[in-house]
């Protein structure tokens, strides 16, 4: 394992440590979505996945 991998690992670890308390806050305070709300997210996400498959076929 070279110093670049160690540096990358420390960088990712620092990001996790920094983001973790924010994640707990977000989970605690974020409003809950209903089925209709989630469908509003799933539809564009499905379009993105379809578009990426199209891009992969083009390359």
């Amino acid at each position: 394992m070279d110093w670049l991998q160690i540096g990358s690992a420390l960088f990712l670890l620092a990001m996790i440590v920094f983001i973790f308390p924010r994640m707990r806050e977000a989970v605690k305070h974020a409003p809950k979505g209903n089925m209709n709300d989630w469908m509003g997210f799933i539809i564009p996400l499905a379009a993105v996945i379809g578009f990426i498959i199209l891009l992969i076929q083009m390359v």
Partner: protein
Amino acid sequence: MNDQNLAMGRSEASILATNKVLKNTYLLLSMTLVFSGVMAFVGMSMNLGHGVSLISSIIAIAMLWFVLPRTANSSAGIPVLFAITGLLGLGLAPMLNIYLAVNPSIVQTALGGTGVIFLGLSGYALTTRKDFSFMGGFLMVGLVVVLVAALANIFLQMPVMGLVVSGAIVMLMSGMILYQTSSIIHGGETNYIMATASLFISILNLFQALLHLLSAFGGDD
């Protein structure tokens, strides 16, 4: 009657303020994306190594966490944002050099694909005016899971896991773009410098993940 006029006046003021944040965000985002692209080109011309790339990315993220929140409410926030996006662009240089050497069309496709996804998702959030604030917790949990998986993969060195992480990043960043755009529309984000920084990071991550997926499934990874 007076109360009704006052409420309408407030509502109009709120819409104007939202439109101003949106306009400033997209203007600043386009400028930072161009600047970041120029810095990536400079880094590629200088043939920067992965060490410099890692260091510039660490400095950029440190500035994003500790300097930008303190300067975002003043004019000093704009040069700080340009410094962050420039350093992140510089950090892309070694990776872009590798992809361009293998298959230049992948970089063009990933760039175009990122643009189409960003414009499509922003357009969706702007036209439907849906409130995506309910996704905050889900996106943050997803981000931590992806970071843990990416950290594990540094030691495990599993190509399949790398692809799963990239796929998850594409989905998370798509969610982030919807969440952030909706946050601007509904008044959750009123600072255009912070809004630009969040959207820039989402676009950058989306581009990198898309590059990885296209190169892997294009058979050139």
